[in-house]
C-alpha cells in the first residue's frame, strides 16, 4: 500500500481515481487502459474484478461485468494482466466477497501483493468479519482495505470505519447503486459536511460523478474523486482505447 500512501501524502487535493472493469471491453485490454490512464495523469486506478451478481452496481457496471465474464476473464488472468501494468500508479481492486472467498482469501491477498496491488474495496465484506478474520491477512500482504461511507452512516460507525481504515475512505455521494443518478448536485450539503466529520483518513468521493463539473465540486470538499460508470460508458463509445483514456481524462480535468 506504500505507492498509494505516497500519493495520498504528496498530493493533497484533486486526486483522480478511475475505475475500469478487467476484461472489458475486450479480454486483454486491462494493461492498455491502466497504462494509458497513468500517461494521461490519473493518480490511481480502481480495477474491478467482474462478478456475476454485483448487487451494489447500476446498469453500466453490471453490463461491463457481464461482458467481461462472457469474454472469458478469470481472476488468474487478471493477475497475469496486472504484471503488465505500470508499477508507479497506485492500484486498488474492487470486487465482491464471493469471488475472493472462493479463490481463497490468503491466496488472493498473496497474489495481490505479488503484482503490486495497494488495496481492496469489497463492499459486501462486513466490518466485524473483516476485523475478526481478515485484517491480519490484509496487513500481512500490505493491502489496505478501503471502506464505504454514505450520507446515512452514523457518527459511531464513521469512527469505527475510520479506525479500521489505513489509507483513504470512500464516501459515496448518495446512497444508491453506482451510476444511478446523473450528477451529484443533490448531495451538495453532504459533500460540504465531509470535512467536518473529523476523520483521520482522507476522503475520496465516488458514485454518480459524470462531468468535470461534478468532479470540481467533489474536489472542493474532499481529497479527490472516483469515476466509474461514466468512464465505462465512454469506453463503449470509442474505438481506440488509448485515445479514449486520454480524451476522458482531459474532459474531466478541464474546468
Amino acid at each position, binding site marked *: 500500500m506504500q505507492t498509494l500512501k505516497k500519493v495520498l501524502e504528496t498530493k493533497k487535493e484533486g486526486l483522480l481515481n478511475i475505475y475500469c472493469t478487467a476484461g472489458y471491453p475486450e479480454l486483454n485490454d486491462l494493461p492498455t487502459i491502466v497504462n494509458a490512464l497513468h500517461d494521461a495523469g490519473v493518480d490511481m486506478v480502481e480495477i474491478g474484478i467482474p462478478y456475476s*451478481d454485483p448487487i451494489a452496481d447500476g446498469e453500466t457496471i453490471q453490463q461491463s461485468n457481464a461482458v467481461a465474464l462472457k469474454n472469458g476473464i478469470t481472476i488468474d488472468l487478471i493477475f497475469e494482466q496486472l504484471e503488465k501494468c505500470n508499477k508507479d500508479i497506485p492500484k486498488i481492486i474492487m470486487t465482491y466477497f464471493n*469471488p475472493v*472467498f472462493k479463490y481463497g482469501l490468503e491466496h488472493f491477498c498473496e497474489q495481490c501483493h505479488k503484482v503490486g496491488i495497494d488495496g481492496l474495496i469489497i463492499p459486501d465484506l462486513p466490518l466485524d468479519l473483516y476485523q475478526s478474520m481478515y485484517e491480519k491477512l490484509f496487513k500481512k500482504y500490505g493491502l489496505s482495505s478501503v*471502506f464505504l461511507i454514505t450520507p*446515512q452512516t452514523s457518527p459511531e460507525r464513521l469512527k469505527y470505519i475510520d479506525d479500521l481504515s489505513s489509507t483513504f475512505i470512500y464516501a459515496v455521494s448518495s446512497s*444508491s*447503486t453506482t451510476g444511478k443518478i446523473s450528477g451529484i448536485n443533490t448531495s451538495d450539503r453532504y459533500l460540504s459536511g465531509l470535512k467536518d466529520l473529523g476523520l483521520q483518513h482522507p476522503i475520496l468521493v465516488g458514485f454518480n460523478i459524470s462531468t468535470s463539473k461534478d468532479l470540481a465540486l467533489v474536489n472542493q470538499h474532499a481529497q479527490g474523486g472516483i469515476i466509474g460508470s461514466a468512464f465505462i460508458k465512454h469506453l463503449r463509445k470509442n474505438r481506440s482505447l488509448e485515445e479514449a483514456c486520454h480524451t476522458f481524462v482531459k474532459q474531466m480535468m478541464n474546468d
Partner: protein
Amino acid sequence: MKYDVNEQGFYGDFGGAFIPEMLYPNIQELKSSYREILNDNAFKKELSGLLKNYVGRPTPLYFAKRLSEHYGTNIYLKREDLCHTGAHKINNTLGQVLLAQRLNKSRIIAETGAGQHGVATATACALMGLECIVYMGAKDIERQAPNVSRMKMLGAEVRPVHSGSKTLKDATNEAIRDWINNQDDTHYIIGSVVGPDPYPDLVTRLQAIISEEIKKQMDGLPTHVIACVGGGSNAIGAFYHFLEDETVKLIGVEAGGLGVKTDKSAATLALGSRGVLHASMSYLMQTSDGQVIEPHSISAGLDYPGIGPLHAHLHDCKRVLYSNVNDHEALEAANRLMQLEGIIPALETSHALAYLEKMTFNPTDKIVINLSGRGDKDMSTYINAAT
C-alpha cells in the same frame, strides 16, 4: 432453540449480512425491531386474525388414503395449497406487510420466481393499501404468465428483469438494488429463508406456523416430514417445530433438473460449495472463480442456485437429509397425486411427492408431506408434458 440464529446472525458457519454499506441502515432497523414487533400482542392478534379469516388457517392435515394404499404406508398431506392465493407464501407476506406498517414504510418491493410470492405480496399489499412493485425475471414472466396477470390485477407493478439468467436470482439482485436506491420509504419482502440476517430468521418465524399446526393436528409425532426446497421457506415451515424431535426424519427435496450429473440442475446441496449469494453465507452453485452458475429446473420456484443458510447448517450437522429428484420424476409424481387423490399440486411440491418413490416404508410409518402449493399456475407445463 438449539437451531436458532445466534446474535451475530449466523447458523453455525452460515448466514450473516454481507451487505454494502448503503443497506446497513435498513438492515439495522429491521434487525433491531423485528423480534419485538413479532412478539407484540397486538401484532400477533392482527396476524392470527388474518391467517384465520383471510388465509383460511389452520390448513387441513389430510390423510391421503389412496396414496397411502399405493405405497403401503400412512401419508398425510399438509394442505398449504388451500391457503388463499394457493401456496404457503402468504403466511410470510401478511406478516411482513404488518411489520412494514409498523416500520412506517409505504412502498413494498419483492422478487418472485414462479410468481407465488409475487402474488402473495401483491395480495397483502392490496389488503393493506400499500404500493407494490414485484421484480421478476423476463424468462419467468414468459413461463408463469397467469401469475403475472394476477399480480397486475391485484394492483402491483411487475418489473421485468433482463440481467443474468433472467430468473429468480436476478430478480432478487434487482430488488436488492431497488432497496439501496429507495431506503426511506421501502420495505423489501424477501420470499424465502434467504438474504441477509435477519431475513432468514424472520421468514422462518412466519412460516413456522405450518409445523406448529401439524404438531397439533397429528396424533403423536410423524416418522417423516418431507418438503421441497428451493430457497427453503416451505421446508423450514414444515420442519421447524420438529427440529428438536430427533426421532422425526426430516427430508428436503431439491430440484435435480435434468439430473445432477448434467449441467442443467438446481440441486444446490448436491452440486454447490460454500459462498455468499444475496448477502448470506451458504452453499451455492458456482464456478471455481466464484461466479454463480445459472441453475435449471422445470419448476420456476426451485430454479435458484442457492439455499437458505439454516438449511446449509441443518445439512452440515445432518439434522435434515437433503436429496433431489429430476424434472420427469416430479411430473410423474404430480400425475400420480392427480389420479389417486384428485389434487393438482404445484410443480415445486411435486418434487417432494416424487421422493416417495425413493423410500422404503413400514406399514406403521406416518409420513407428512408439505403440499406447499396448488398447480393452477403450472397447467401449461402439465399439458405439454402429457402430449
